[in-house]
């Protein structure tokens, strides 16, 4: 309870709520796109780099393997229950259900960032390699979502489209930046941190605040689409993160992660992508309706996780692991 309130009254969440409010009253407040996207790149770079530096400090890369494999597995498998739930609760087409399922198997980097910020403010530590876990969870879900969407079709993707898709999955900008900055963190270690600290560490909370302000504006704009979406979809947007978080908590516990690490694993499983997957879906499933999945991932699941989910998952991880 106390943690939930602390989360609610933290500058990042308040900035999100401010953006949400501004959007709801249709204020003309607007963060230019070019800047908002650059702030996202900054956040990705920062968590990757800090994770790498942290890992370099411990020196031991072995404990990385199991979490990475489990994470990739989660990303591959979570679209299955998501797809099932969608077919059960809603009447969206198979193609749209596959596309949405892919978003939920993947992860939201900003939700992860907000969770690390929450942990830090509570003084809870977590494993540095989790930045790599984020990267590894971003894209496998795209494959499953695609197979689900195309199942029953006689013609698959032709060879060129398949090549393009594999490329899109491997060379996705946020994956490359996250793994790249993680590697730079490992290679440059404490000395690198000394040089970049004022930007990647001191500036982090402030940038997160501005970025979440913009997220609030974007989320509010999504609300308009809810009227035509149906209660089943909205319900899915709330149930799926809880289901994902449960699986994530179990996985974190099995892997023997710390309280913070388990909470982050849960947060990742609970979150839905709105950067990497939408881009890949335009190529993989161009006929899927992009507004539908964005409205769910951005309009429902993101605010739910940010405001309610994160403190919940941290509390649950505390009980389960602590």
């Amino acid at each position: 309870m106390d943690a939930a309130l602390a989360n609610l009254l933290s500058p990042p969440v308040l900035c999100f709520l401010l953006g949400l409010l501004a959007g709801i009253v249709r204020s003309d407040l607007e963060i230019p796109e070019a800047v908002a996207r650059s702030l996202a790149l900054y956040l990705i770079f920062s968590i990757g780099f800090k994770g790498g530096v942290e890992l370099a400090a411990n020196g031991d890369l072995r404990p990385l393997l199991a979490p990475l494999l489990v994470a990739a597995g989660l990303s591959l498998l979570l679209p299955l229950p998501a797809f099932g739930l969608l077919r059960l609760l809603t009447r969206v087409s198979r193609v749209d259900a596959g596309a949405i399922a892919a978003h939920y198997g993947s992860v939201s980097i900003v939700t992860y960032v907000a969770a690390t910020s929450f942990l830090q403010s509570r003084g809870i530590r977590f494993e540095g390699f989790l930045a790599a876990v984020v990267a590894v969870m971003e894209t496998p879900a795209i494959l499953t979502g695609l197979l689900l969407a195309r199942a029953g079709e006689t013609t698959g993707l032709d060879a060129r489209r398949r090549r393009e898709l594999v490329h899109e999955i491997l060379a996705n900008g946020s994956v490359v930046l996250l793994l790249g900055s993680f590697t730079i963190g490992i290679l440059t270690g404490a000395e690198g941190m000394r040089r970049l600290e004022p930007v990647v560490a001191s500036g982090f909370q402030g940038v997160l605040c501005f970025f979440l302000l913009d997220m609030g504006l974007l989320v509010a704009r999504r609300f308009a689409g809810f009227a035509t979406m149906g209660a089943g979809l909205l319900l899915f947007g709330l149930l799926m993160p809880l289901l994902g978080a449960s699986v994530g908590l179990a996985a974190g516990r099995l892997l023997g992660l710390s309280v913070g690490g388990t909470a982050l694993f849960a947060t990742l499983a609970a979150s839905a992508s709105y950067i990497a997957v939408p881009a890949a879906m335009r190529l993989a499933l161009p006929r899927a309706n992009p507004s539908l999945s964005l409205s769910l991932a951005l309009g429902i699941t993101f605010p739910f996780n940010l405001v309610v989910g994160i403190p919940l998952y941290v509390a649950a991880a505390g009980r389960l692991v602590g």
Partner: protein
Amino acid sequence: MQTYKRKRLEIVVEKRRAPAVLDLLDREPGITGWTMLPCIGGRGHTGTRLPEGATDALDTVLILVVTSEEVAHRTMAAVLELLEEFVGVVLMGEVEVARPAHF
């Protein structure tokens, strides 16, 4: 001022598909150039797109090509085939130019 008739193609596609379209234009010897403009929103059969701070996945661009009638028809067909099930529209209009060799 003496002018010469040409065709003016306008192609609206997702930014991520633009390189494929530009490749196609660059491979067509009858085309001497193109101009690309950014869009900040659109509506079509795949719903409404407005600028997103978080992702550029839905961004579109408008590509303008001035060329001869024959090449324009060929290119229109080729672009529509390339777009296939992808998002996009192709428009053809009339235009006059003063330096015919340039187009």
